């Protein structure tokens, strides 16, 4: 290492020792060699990371792509019957997959906007209170550090109707002369309601955290200026606060979409592992079933489903980014 540095030292200021400042060409060549050496060094430093990424990220991604086009691939014998679009055709005609796609889209479309909006309202509230602000911030952040499965179990118990009890939620509903509804084994809309309720509850803390800090970072002086100019509170919010925190909102929406499309563990937490029979499977859940579930052992179908999910997420993210660029403030 040290020898290397010494060798480089004279190169670093190539013009000075030569004593002939007019000889531009050799100076140029030297520095171009230097750049080459430098970039070679940079690649050398990057090599370990690139190797790991290549083996554990790029290779599996390509492999999944390959599997998805191999008909009846068997991972044990490493054999397949042939190549083609068969896996895609199968998956796209599988009623379980279509149900999973429908479920996923409903969850995404309901939970992402609603959770972001709720988080914004909560953050605004948190930002405007002075006393006990930290206490409330902590309370709102607690769900983030609790375990999804444990909380899912609590949700299930709260919503479940059994022969012995109607559950907490149905008790509340009975006050309003409604119910009882079986939210866990009952009608589809009830199950979907619990699912969305739970998903929003789970993703809310992180969004509240991000938005509270985004709101706090808006310089107070803008509001002062706006007040002096007679700006109403509503207009202050729509014309100052929102544009100023819009990058953070877009960040949350984009990551929210991606996260919601990849939902699986939340569903398991409430409806158990047999999501297909509950009619509450998601795309990732379908991929899992195809690999390891009771009907599993079909990596080709799983690969095809995963790539369809990838295509969907990719498309939505590109649309999101385009939109955010269009309305971006800077």
């Amino acid at each position, binding site marked *: 290492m040290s020898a290397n540095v010494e060798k480089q030292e004279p190169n670093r200021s190539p013009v000075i020792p030569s004593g002939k400042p007019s000889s531009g060409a050799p100076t140029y060549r030297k520095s171009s060699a230097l750049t080459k050496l430098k970039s070679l060094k940079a690649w050398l430093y990057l090599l370990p990371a690139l190797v790991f990424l290549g083996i554990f990220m790029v290779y599996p991604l390509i492999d999944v792509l390959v599997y998805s086009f191999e008909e009846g691939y068997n991972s044990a014998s490493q054999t397949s019957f042939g190549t083609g679009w068969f896996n895609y055709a199968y998956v796209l005609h599988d009623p379980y997959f279509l149900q999973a796609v429908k479920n996923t889209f409903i969850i995404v479309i309901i939970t992402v906007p609603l959770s972001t909006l709720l988080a914004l309202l909560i953050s605004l509230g948190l930002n405007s209170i002075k006393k006990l602000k930290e206490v409330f911030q902590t309370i709102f952040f607690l769900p983030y550090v609790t375990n999804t499965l444990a909380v899912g179990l609590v949700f299930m118990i709260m919503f479940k109707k059994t022969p012995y009890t109607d559950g907490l939620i149905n008790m509340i509903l009975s006050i309003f002369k409604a119910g009882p509804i079986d939210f866990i084994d009952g009608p589809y809309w009830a199950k979907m309601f619990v699912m969305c309720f739970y998903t929003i509850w789970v993703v809310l803390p992180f969004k509240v955290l991000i938005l509270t800090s985004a709101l706090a970072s808006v*310089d107070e*002086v*803008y509001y*002062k*200026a*706006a*007040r*002096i*100019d*007679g*700006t*109403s509170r509503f*207009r202050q919010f729509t*014309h*100052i606060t929102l*544009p*100023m925190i819009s990058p953070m909102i877009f960040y949350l929406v984009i990551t929210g979409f991606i996260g919601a499309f990849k939902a699986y563990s939340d569903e398991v937490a409430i409806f158990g592992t047999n999501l297909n029979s509950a009619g509450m499977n998601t795309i990732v859940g379908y991929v899992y079933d195809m690999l390891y579930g009771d009907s599993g052992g079909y990596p080709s179908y799983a690969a095809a489903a995963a790539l369809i999910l990838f295509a969907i997420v990719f498309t939505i993210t590109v649309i999101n980014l385009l939109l955010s660029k269009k309305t971006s*403030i*800077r």
Partner: protein
Amino acid sequence: MKIRFEGLTKRFPNRNKKIKAEVVAVDHFTFEIPDGKLVGLLGPSGCGKSTALNLICGLETPTEGRIFFDEDDVTDIPAESRGVGMVFQSYALYPHLNVRKNIMFPLQNLKGEQKLTKEQMESKAMEAARIVQIEELMDRKPNEMSGGQQQRVAIARALVKMPRVLLLDEPLSNLDARLRIQTREEIKRIQNETKITTVFVTHDQEEAMSISDLIVVMKDGAIHQIGKPQEVYDQPANLFVAKFLGTPPINVFTGRIEGGKLLIGDEEILGKDYVKDTPDQEVYIGIRPEGFVLREGKDGALDGKAGVFSGKLLAIEVMGRDTSVVFSHGSSEIEGTRHRAIVSSDNRIDPDSEKVFFDLNPKKVFVFSKESQERLL
């Protein structure tokens, strides 16, 4: 429009919660800002001048006292409805809006009968932009402009709704030296053109002196002197005002009045004509740099008579237009102060001289009580 304060007071709880005593940012202000004038609130940082400004615009509510715009009591009117325009130190331009939209922002807030059409807003915004000369920048975003340009946009935004009062908080502090001089003239011109009563806050005495019609010198929440810049400079009410105004600063010595003579050390610097009947006492003596009249020749005794005041010559700084004579004196208020006399560059001084001798211009000599620091003479 006149602005009148009656016993205006603002107290804040102490930041350090262990200290019970409140901080008095503004202490019983009672004075009137005349209509259509440019008034500078001048004081060192932390003297409460920004609080005073916030009280005028309504961002702070006073602990005691009233504020009147002409005859209207506005003390309880919220900032939104006071109709003042304010330029913040950081300009507070909305970064996501271009110049045109920034300037139009206050107009879009108008409701009911005052509501304007888009064309009216555009033309008012253009008019404001014309006053501050930024018509060609209307489509820029704030971060695409220099500090001076942003400043102008901020002024245009404050002016566009034709406020009754224009307030400027440290308007020049974020600008570089050259732009500062240019912009302060600009502020004066805009104020002249619009005739809006304007109050600005600054800690830079030169800034305040150069453009104000009236300056208010503040310290620790209290007003020390109000007057035209030249009056305040020529007739400071107390030692603080004398020290705060003027560059280079006034030279302060300890001395005494004894039997109708004004003495610094053993030198009698001014006699009966100046001291009159002031009783004997210890005093501070302030002499403006331009109050020294250099005695040329050896020991200052060109005509066989030495000057009334002498100091140890430290350096001579030639400025071209005039010359600074830097000297020290045994009776400085703060020991080891490098005093500065400004004399005409026609004066010839031997740089190797040990001592330097001066006569004094009595108009530039101020005597303050040592006890109260109030001006005696």
